[in-house]
């Protein structure tokens, strides 16, 4: 029942709506189509105004989610379950990310924004909200 909400309809969902939407990465389903999976992640990144990719059960991802939600953003969430998934996801994202892949990762407007550090720093300096508005993740 859970799906990633594509970009266009996420516009409608953002107003004070604190529903989380999950796309769980089930290992069994993806054995057949690793190519498809590759596209999937990249598609999600480009289709969502804000997407958080993190490890399941990680409290850091939790912090990212809560922070974004408190700002009124409805971020898409992609949870990476086990070590193996992590490697696959990391490899895929290498094409659009320079350097090491560190979870949790935040993508805003289809581009890699950074991790929790960058999120916090940008929020404290007051630059995060304008950025989110620009990417269409927030409406005044």
């Amino acid at each position: 029942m859970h799906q990633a909400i594509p970009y266009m309809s996420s516009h409608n969902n953002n107003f004070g709506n604190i529903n989380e939407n999950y796309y769980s990465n089930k290992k069994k389903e993806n054995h057949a189509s690793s190519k498809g999976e590759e596209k999937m992640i990249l598609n999600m990144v480009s289709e969502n105004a804000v997407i958080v990719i993190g490890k399941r059960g990680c409290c850091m991802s939790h912090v990212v989610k809560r922070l974004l939600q408190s700002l009124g953003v409805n971020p898409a969430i992609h949870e990476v379950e086990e070590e193996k998934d992590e490697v696959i996801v990391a490899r895929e994202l290498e094409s659009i990310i320079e350097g090491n892949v560190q979870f949790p990762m935040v993508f805003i407007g289809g581009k890699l924004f950074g991790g929790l550090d960058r999120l916090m720093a940008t929020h404290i300096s007051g630059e995060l909200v304008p950025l989110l508005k620009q990417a269409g993740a927030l409406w005044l």
Partner: protein
Amino acid sequence: MNSPSAQFVSSRRMSVYDPIHQINMWGEGFKSNGNLSASIPLIDEADLKFDSSQSEDASHGMLGTSNKYEQEANRPIDKIQRRLAQNREAARKSRLRKKAYVQQLESSRLKLVQLEQELERVRQQGMYMGGGLDSNNMCFAGPVNPGIAAFEMEYGHWVDEQNRQISEMRNALNSHISDIELRMLVDGMMNHYAEIYRMKSAAAKTDVFYVMSGMWKTTAERFFLWIGGFRPSELLKILGPMIEPLTEQQRLDIDNLGQSCQQAEDALSQGMEKLRQTLADSVAAGQFIEGTYIPQMATAMEKLEALVSFVNQETLQQMSRTLTIRQSARCLLALGEYFQRLRALSSLWSNRPREPA
């Protein structure tokens, strides 16, 4: 005719005396920093001006007397000038020597205080480990983690340096130092805070629970503990009254900063809650049999602790960006004094005279 010439005489006499005074002042300046050499020729210019105006005057007699006066005055001027300049130089050197001696005394005193504190700490640890009155047991109940012991010692030094910086800032704000010097003090204090955050992170790697519980802090500070540190919103509350008067733009910026801090704090608190829950569940489920070390848990806690320090640091940075340098200085002073008082509170309350039982 008389009055203009009288006028000239008196003003001439004044100009003879004035150059003496001025030569001496400028002479000193010339000797000590070489900057005022330009002013010395001015005397000659001034004299020349008077001479030329004198020559335009009809009375030659007056010109003659003023020249003689000038020649007689010149020889003693040289000697006086030289002697006074030498005196000044000697006095200056003496002052510099005294200053160096005082500085040496102060740093020795500081070192003495540090050594005394370390002695006290070690003595207390010895008592704790000794346990009973005469027991000579070898089992150490005190902290044996060398990383933590090192951290505690470093922390003592950190506090001493902090106290020194606070006094320096207080004096600076009471005197009228330039903005540039004030900026140096502000940067110094900010760097000092960065230092304690670094130390905490390193200590967390050896014993994360120790850092999370704020064990190195005084009991009063621990009362306000939040994820091993201090709430950024608390920081802003303390600083609030210190930074008035504010411009409208500043007020807006500070309000926004307060709101951002609160949101960051809430998110971090929820992350901490989740971590606690995970840990509790794991312990209940028997995953930590005999306290086996689970790296992911420790890493998560270390990251949270580091984030708290990071958020505090970023908050201070953002404050300093919003405020003038003088306001920032007042803020840092207020912050430092607040923690000083909080630390003092602990020992005052625990050492208060009690009613005899």
